[in-house]
């Protein structure tokens, strides 16, 4: 396995010196995200997120399986994060790095365990059939901020995804293909977004959305996941440096502003995409709903 190029001593000193003088390498303020771009694929459930030079594609797919025996009324939802050497030659297939483990653990906590997706709505026939949803994350380009970008990608892809419609008659379920019936959006209860803070100079300097070079010289990081209502889903703190609890509390209010912005951005992009798909207002015309 080839090793990733480590940052040199000079570069490290340069970045740290700059931070002490309140200057970031790319000229951003300390509490600014890089430019965020979000595009959707031709199919439903594909979200392509670009955060600066970091690029992540999330793809949500569904199939029908039997539910777990102990959870008869729940569908199945999995997030798969496997790094490939595309992002960095140091990533190897089948041998997860620490970054990969942390990413999958945080997404698990932030999206799955916070109950963002209503898994009960994925149930078709209790104990017999349910939808198994799977979100595949493809990291194409790695320039730091993988956790933030991946979380945005998964949340956007889930909101964009449409599952096939089903009709249940007794013990028989009919799954309609996309051509037969308009597919149905997932029921999502809230939209958690991750914001990563990086700590430098014994916890005195705090950066938002560090890029790869800044990530390599940081002393600690804290990942805060919130939704736009200000509910904290999880806080994870990694690295050796100690952080003042009051400062961490302060971080949540800073994070909330960012989370609101990002949620609004995702919503806007989703609406733009819906408008693009709905050529000539066909969906409104096909709807059988009466005006009340």
């Amino acid at each position, binding site marked *: *396995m*080839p*090793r990733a190029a480590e940052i040199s001593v000079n570069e490290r000193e340069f970045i740290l010196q700059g931070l002490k003088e309140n200057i970031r390498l790319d000229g951003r303020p300390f509490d600014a995200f890089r430019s965020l771009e979000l595009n959707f*694929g*031709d*199919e439903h459930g*594909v979200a392509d997120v670009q955060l600066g*030079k970091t*690029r992540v*594609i999330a*793809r949500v*797919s569904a199939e029908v399986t039997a539910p777990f025996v102990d959870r008869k009324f729940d569908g199945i939802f999995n997030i*798969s994060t*496997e790094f*490939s*050497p*595309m*992002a*960095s*030659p140091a990533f190897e*297939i089948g041998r997860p790095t620490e970054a990969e483990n942390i990413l999958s653990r945080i997404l698990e906590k932030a999206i799955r365990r916070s109950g963002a997706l209503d898994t009960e709505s994925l149930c078709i026939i209790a104990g017999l059939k349910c939808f198994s949803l*799977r979100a*595949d994350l*493809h990291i*194409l*380009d*790695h*320039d730091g901020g993988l956790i933030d970008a991946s979380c945005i990608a998964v949340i956007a892809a889930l909101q964009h995804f449409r599952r096939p419609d089903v009709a249940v008659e007794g013990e028989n379920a009919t799954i309609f*293909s*996309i051509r037969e019936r308009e597919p149905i959006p997932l029921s999502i209860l809230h939209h958690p977004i991750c914001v990563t803070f990086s700590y430098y100079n014994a916890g005195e300097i705090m950066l938002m959305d560090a890029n790869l070079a800044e990530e390599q010289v940081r002393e600690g990081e804290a990942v805060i996941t919130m939704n736009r209502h200000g509910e904290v889903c999880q806080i994870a703190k990694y690295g050796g440096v100690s952080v003042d609890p009051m400062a961490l509390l302060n971080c949540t209010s800073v994070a909330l502003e960012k989370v609101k912005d990002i949620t609004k951005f995702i919503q806007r992009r989703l609406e733009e995409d819906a408008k693009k798909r709905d050529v000539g207002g066909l969906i409104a015309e096909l709807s059988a709903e009466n005006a009340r």
Partner: protein
Amino acid sequence: MAPQALLSPLHQADGSATYSANGYSVIGAVNGPVEVSRRDELPEEAAIEVIVRPAAGVGSPRERHLESLLRTTLQHIILTRAHPRTLIQLTLQITSLPDEESAGDGSALSYSSLPLLPPLLTTALLALLSASIPLSTTLAAALVAISATGKIKCAPTAAEMVRAGPGVSSLHVFAFSAGRALVLAESEGDFEFGAWEEACAVAEEACCERVAGMEVDGEAGNGQAFLRGVVEGKVGREMRWRMAV
């Protein structure tokens, strides 16, 4: 839809390319020559590693099969002896498939891995070009379907294959080098040798540039001509500083 290609869309990899044609989109990245692990090290040439990642789910034997086909083909094209004891690592990520492929309706599409091979090969070659890995030649690949009635169709679309259903009796993938040498021939299904030869000739026509003097303007479907166009664009952009007066 005409095939589309974009060179070097990624920042981290040494070279990268996206290619989409007929509903298939693939993004490829090349890292190399890089340090090689002791296990894979070859004393006199570069080791080549090809990784194919499916759009959804984890890799299966189908991807492993495609990887081995790609590796053996690319081995003959990359000048591996120029970089002994190194590794050239090629990652191909499939980003989208035609809608028909996932339908699973028993047509030739849903069980065969051959329709994926031409887009993967083209992406691999474009990524290698973008990474400036020395190559002995370029190559172009084409998919050919022979129907039960003996009709030969070059580069059938996914919709056509689904419509034909069991009417497709065999599928073939041919790859030709710039010098019109056959470098890859993979076939599936029932066919006669005569039909195979005919299919091979059709694929050669689709892959290789016409002999000088027979040039037809605005020919789009031609494999080598397409590659030439993409590379011309790349060189044009890189040499812009020289052209400016």
